[in-house]
């Protein structure tokens, strides 16, 4: 558990003060928040594109590995931007967000989505050559895709709910 003192110290840094508009720029928070939305849109959009292929619903004419090579750079690039903008939003009210239930559930969903991705990559995806072109991938891949969509929808829901509960 991160001690509350540390969270409060983070809130007193000049960067956090700037994010709260205490140094003048009252539009900084909404602008960073919008950049966060744009980043998460690319993260979620690209992940769903991949997941729907794994479930066997979309992009069925593309090989899974090819689509993965095409889409994943967008996912990781945007995820990096989401981390930077998300951290800036977080430090503005670090202790409020840290103890907020929706915030915690959002991170739980992201953690589970990460575990799901890892299991898929170390498991079924290692034999992708055997089912690369199949319109309907094996059930383990379809399950991973469906789980991923569900968890990322959870991330968006809890993320939006943070704004209504803090």
């Amino acid at each position, binding site marked *: 558990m991160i001690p509350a003192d540390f969270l409060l110290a983070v809130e007193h840094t000049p960067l956090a003060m700037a994010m709260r508009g205490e140094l003048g720029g009252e*539009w900084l928070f*909404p602008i960073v*928040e*919008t950049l966060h*939305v*744009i980043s*998460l*849109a*690319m*993260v*979620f*959009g*690209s992940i*769903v*594109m991949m997941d729907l292929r794994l479930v066997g619903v*979309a*992009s069925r*004419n*593309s090989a899974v590995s*090819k689509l993965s*090579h*095409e889409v994943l*750079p*967008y996912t990781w690039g945007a995820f990096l931007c989401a981390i930077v903008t998300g951290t800036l939003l977080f430090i503005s009210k670090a202790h409020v967000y840290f103890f907020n239930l929706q915030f915690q559930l959002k991170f739980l969903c992201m953690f589970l989505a990460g575990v799901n991705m890892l299991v898929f990559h170390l498991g079924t995806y290692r034999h992708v050559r055997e089912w690369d072109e199949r319109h309907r991938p094996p059930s383990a891949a379809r399950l991973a895709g469906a789980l991923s969509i569900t968890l990322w*929808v959870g991330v*968006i*829901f809890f993320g*939006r*709910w943070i704004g*209504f509960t803090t």
Partner: protein
Amino acid sequence: MRKFSVDMMPAMLHVTHRWANWLANTGLSGWLQNEAWVVPTSQSIHIASVSVVFCCAVMISLRLLGLSASGRSVSQLVDTLVPWMYRALAVLLLTGVVQTIAEPVRQFVTPVFWWKMLMILCVLALTVWFARAVRRNAAQWDTAARPVGAKWFALTSLCLWVGIIFCGRFIGYTWELYL
């Protein structure tokens, strides 16, 4: 006829404020206002849908600008992604209508909402035109010698989508300034 000018903004907003008050007093709006879960749920679905549209638009635009490593041709990308954009746009319209009925004043009083609507109309018209042009003449769009309009379409639609997301988020931060 008077030329449109910035001076007319307050008058226009006065009219839209009246619409908002009328809508806010309808039974349907009253019901939606009382259900606290409706707006956040609708907004979450709205964000998930805009992600699909935005990601497809970015991938197509970067492909047209020659900035992506996509192995797919322009016409393949359009055939795969544009139908998903239209589906997500239908969900965006539905959830957008729900949010507007639930909080008409929040939406109608800020000019940012109307800029957003204007940009949506522009990007919709552009996208429909583009998708049709590609379908009609796939061979030409798939070569390096694409129509000159391709790069302009890509840049314009990228800017419009970023603008739309900005306006969408800024409705919530500006409406109280216009009450």
